């Protein structure tokens, strides 16, 4: 039986309690989760010219934290993430492996000049968390519209999809979880 270690990267994201995420992981993925209290130091992954953190490097340090491979590690950071070719990424995960992470940087309404909405933020965190964890269980992007594995390149894509897996993806999860 897997469980999920939720680890904050750099510092704890503001306005996010992570409770909704933990509850979602339990209710939807049927996995226990632990929120670890001490944020991981991530200075080494900062690209000073881009003022962003290299997502793939962070993923590598998360994998090291869980060398036994028994649990999933889900990293959450308030800082902006990138991979070399792209201007940013919301998150990243290892397909069929143990580490995943996402950033709350672009999940805040304020980022888009919209009114502050803690509920929206929590909901987006839940969806991003489920999505990236889905990848670690071997799920690829799903083209069923009502599915959290729908790919999101834009924050409103995240809002359009539900915080749940479609029947197809759920079937897959049942077979591996």
């Amino acid at each position, binding site marked *: 039986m897997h469980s999920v270690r939720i680890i904050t990267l750099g510092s704890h994201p503001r306005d996010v309690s992570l409770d909704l995420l933990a509850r979602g992981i339990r209710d939807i993925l049927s996995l226990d989760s632990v929120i670890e209290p001490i944020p991981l130091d991530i200075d080494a992954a900062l690209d000073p010219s881009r003022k962003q953190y290299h997502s793939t490097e962070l993923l590598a340090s998360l994998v090291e934290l869980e060398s036994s491979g028994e649990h999933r590690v889900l990293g959450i950071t308030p800082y902006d993430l990138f991979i070399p070719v792209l201007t940013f990424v919301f998150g990243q995960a290892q397909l069929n492996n143990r580490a995943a992470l996402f950033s709350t940087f672009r999940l805040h309404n304020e980022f888009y000049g919209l009114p502050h909405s803690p509920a929206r933020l929590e909901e987006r965190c839940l969806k991003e968390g489920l999505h990236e964890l889905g990848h670690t269980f071997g799920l*690829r992007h799903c083209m069923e519209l009502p599915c959290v594995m729908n790919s999101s*390149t834009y924050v409103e894509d995240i809002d359009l999809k539900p915080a749940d897996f479609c*029947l197809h993806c759920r079937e897959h999860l049942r077979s591996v979880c």
Partner: protein
Amino acid sequence: MTAFDPSEITIMVVDDELSVRQSLEAWFQDDGYTMVTAENAAEALSRMQEQRIDIILLDIKMPGMDGLALQDRIREFNTDVIIIIITAFATVDTAVRALKAGAFDYTTKPVDPDELSLLVRNAVDRIRLQRENIALRESIDHLQYVDDIIGESAQMQKVFELVKTVAPTDSTVLILGESGTGKELIARAIHMNSTRKYFPIIPVNCGAIPESLMESELFGHEKGAFTGAQYRRKGKLEMARGGSLFLDEIGTLGLKSQVDLLRVLEDREFHRVGGERSVKADFRLICATNVNLSDAVQRGEFREDLYYRINVFTIVLPSLRERQADIPLLANHFLDKHRKAMNKNVEAISPEAMNLLKSYDWPGNVRELVNAIERAVVINKSGTITPDDLPMQMASRPKEAHGEQTLADVERRHIEVMLEENDWNISRTADKLHIDRVTLYNKIEKYGLKRP
């Protein structure tokens, strides 16, 4: 889109930088594409000998043979493969050269994720058009991807015929029907049976967005366009590029937004708020409303010119009580769906319960039916849905306050009364209730309230 298997499309990344190859490979693997990488021109050419490559993401600046020279070489023996140039050093010159030499598209590093996926989706779309030859298909034999639109009644058969007729054209469609009749499902059916189906359908609920935010919502804004706009934001019109824009409850669109929208429909282009550059409008427009737009035009609340623009092809959805014959079919369909989703053994609906379902007048239409069945599946213990599992109001729909059971019932009734007292003026009613317009609108939706 279940018929489409991305693994049948092979993308090759050609770039001398390992981190670029790795990140693009991982990024597109998540979408399910088959990925190949090459660190220089020679390796790229030998990969192409070994296997079929559909799309090449090509860097220009590489040691040895550069990207443009490689593209020329490839074109000597392969005219099919789609080449997308991704380069750190963009000049107008190289862009023009690359496109003239047959590149499909051109972008600079670092690229926005949505732009990159759009580029590849466009390429995939072209490949699929070639493979499936769908460009030539002019008529539809049966509607695809319309799981939840069900009905054998004559009224619904008529609707299906209209959807089939209009879907493959690029015509603007206006869908009329009460709340909960499934207007969005019909919009999706039209989209999914059109040639735009590989691009998104973007829904906008006009009633749920405050007028002050509407402009930025539709058109997006540039960084610094107004206080608080720290970043560029893409609007719904831009997100719908290549696909369809679904404006739900268009009757609630404010007059200023009506003018803005009309201008886009006429010019086929628009500007982001605070932006100089015009953006091409490439979407099919589908609108829906539960209010009588020609009355709204009479009252001066809806522009006549916009009304004529959108009222090109109209589909009227019957209310559920107008198609009672479909109720058993629908009820069983949603029973099946929720039973599977909740993994519960609820096999049937008793004849008594079915009679209640058939005789109820369903003010909230199919949506109310779905909710009733879902609730019944949740609370049912015996395996057969009986009248006890159905909401109380179904047995005798309460007109007066004493029949209500739950807080929600009371709220619903109170809102209904307040709306009637204020002649369904949303702003005034919201004011009296001390809630905002959007909240009131959402509650009207939720309870399926409608103007008598």
